[in-house]
């Protein structure tokens, strides 16, 4: 509205100047008129751009926020999976996540990402088939699930100190730190983070509080810290905590971080044991059956220099009463063209040991067994036809634990981010 007013005002002023006899011949007046015309053009351009953005409908008004950003993404992933004896093709997952960020003032803000998703599982090793070949589980698209991956209030003193509370992300792992899928060059996460929301080796999400900040050492170096305390969805009474400390070489685009965390895994009991199976192309089940305390440590490296991106992480988890876990993931991407990226990733994940079901009658019985390790090689190409659109085609060669069966997967996925 202000722009319209300015445009009318400037137009009127220009008309008045043009109407004055003799003025148009004066070089000074002609210059002033030219400048006014230029300003009118600018205002009209801005006005038309504003109208294009706002449209003819009501403009959003945030009740008390000084600033409100709304965005999100839509992602779908389809897969062709080939096992030892059988191949199958199907839909793995589709999700819509909305990003809502409201800023109340310079210190307080809220970030929430309500999401809706539907997944068909994509089991790489279906235990119901004789040869344990890949399969998809059925789900009802009319019952897409609600998913809250972030729901956090933030108070910030400045870059050196921010406090977040609510449903927050853990700082561990390179892919997990990015978290939302549209920025990934390979659709599926690494083996030890593949099934979201779980406590596989380190927590990826928690309900709690975190303190984080960035401290400049000098103009080329920085220290980032992030410490958290809380619990996870599957066990609100089991406390978890951890921290990440990173040294950042800003001119090299390189960060090297140490990670530590501790907590308790609640375990799975009763009939839930039968539903705790590998999903979403993950070689291991999303939760541990056997309850135990744990402590983990790890190193992650994130290096982004020009067209080159490397994400590497090594983690070791000490499991009380069970065999320990180990995970390695290294991903290298080169954007050979501005809009085309070529990626390679290697994953190794040793799940340690866990309780497995050995009898269903007369009651469900379990015993501790070594879970073995899985490895995966991924070659991927991603294409960004638009800065907000990413198409991916990834070939995965997965060596399953214990059976040592091989599964090849060709994943096609896309993300539209707005």
């Amino acid at each position, binding site marked *: 509205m202000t722009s319209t007013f300015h445009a009318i005002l400037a137009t009127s002023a220009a008309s008045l100047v043009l109407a004055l006899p003799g003025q148009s011949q004066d070089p000074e007046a002609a210059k002033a008129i030219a400048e006014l015309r230029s300003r009118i053009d600018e205002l009209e351009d801005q006005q038309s*751009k504003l109208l294009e953005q706002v449209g003819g409908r009501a403009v959003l008004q945030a009740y008390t926020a000084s600033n409100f*950003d709304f965005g999100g993404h839509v992602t779908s992933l389809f897969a062709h999976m080939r096992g030892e004896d059988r191949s199958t093709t199907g839909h793995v997952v589709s999700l819509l996540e909305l990003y809502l960020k409201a800023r109340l003032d310079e210190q307080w803000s809220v*970030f929430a*990402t309500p999401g809706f998703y539907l997944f068909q599982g994509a089991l790489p090793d279906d235990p119901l088939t004789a040869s344990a070949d890949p399969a998809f589980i059925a789900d009802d698209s009319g019952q897409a699930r609600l998913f809250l991956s972030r729901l956090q209030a933030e108070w910030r003193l400045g*870059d050196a100190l921010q406090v977040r509370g609510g449903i927050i992300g853990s700082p561990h792992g390179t892919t997990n730190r990015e*978290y939302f899928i549209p920025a990934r060059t390979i659709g599926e996460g690494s083996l030890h983070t593949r099934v979201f929301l779980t406590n596989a080796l380190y927590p990826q999400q928690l309900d709690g509080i975190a303190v984080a900040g960035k401290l400049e050492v000098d103009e080329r170096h920085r220290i980032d810290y992030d410490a958290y305390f809380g619990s996870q969805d599957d066990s609100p009474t089991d406390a978890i905590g951890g921290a990440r400390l990173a040294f950042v070489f800003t001119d090299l685009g390189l960060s090297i971080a140490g990670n530590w965390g501790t907590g308790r895994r609640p375990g799975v009991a009763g009939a839930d044991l039968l539903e705790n199976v590998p999903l979403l192309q993950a070689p291991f089940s999303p939760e541990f059956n056997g309850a135990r305390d744990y402590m983990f440590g790890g190193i992650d490296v994130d290096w982004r220099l020009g067209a080159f991106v490397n994400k590497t992480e090594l983690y070791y988890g000490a499991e009380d009463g069970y065999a320990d876990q180990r995970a390695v993931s290294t991903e290298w991407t080169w954007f050979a063209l501005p*809009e085309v990226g070529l990626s390679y990733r290697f994953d190794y994940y040793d799940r340690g040991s866990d309780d497995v079901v050995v009898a269903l009658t007369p009651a469900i019985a379990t015993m501790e067994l070594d879970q073995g390790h899985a490895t995966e090689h991924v070659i991927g190409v991603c294409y960004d036809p638009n800065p907000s659109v990413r198409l991916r085609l990834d070939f995965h060669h997965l060596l399953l634990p214990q059976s040592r069966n091989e599964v090849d997967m060709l994943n096609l996925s896309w993300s539209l981010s707005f």
Partner: protein
Amino acid sequence: MTTAVLPMLVIAAILGRAQDPAPPKNTTTYVVVVNAKNAATETGDAAKAVVKKLFLKDLTQWPDGAEAKPYRRPDKSGAHDAFQQLVLGMSDAELARHWLRVKNQDGTTPPKEVDSDRMVLKYVARYPGAFGIVPKDAVKGVEGVRVLIEL
């Protein structure tokens, strides 16, 4: 011989496209302007390093603690091209990937885009932590702003 040279030419062409930020399209001198009350004392490469971090939102505060408020110019404009090459040192695609990543990390959005030089100068004069890129000539006689970096 031809079979050996051809792949090398293709790779060279790809590398050339992938690495080189687009050169500025004209010879206009651009400047990064800040609010006249801005206490930044950095000059040269040090000033560019600070402005780069603030523009990319890696940091959000000037060294004196004032909240940074960057404004960007339209893609493909002379001001944006000069800033991108001489301060950010990034290609269009690298910049796009940066904003895609930070947005999908914590909802951070790119700086607001302003078309007009005059509007950039008005915003910068109004907000203490603001900065923007304009042609050097546009700053003459404008109150409330000062030049931090000449590109």
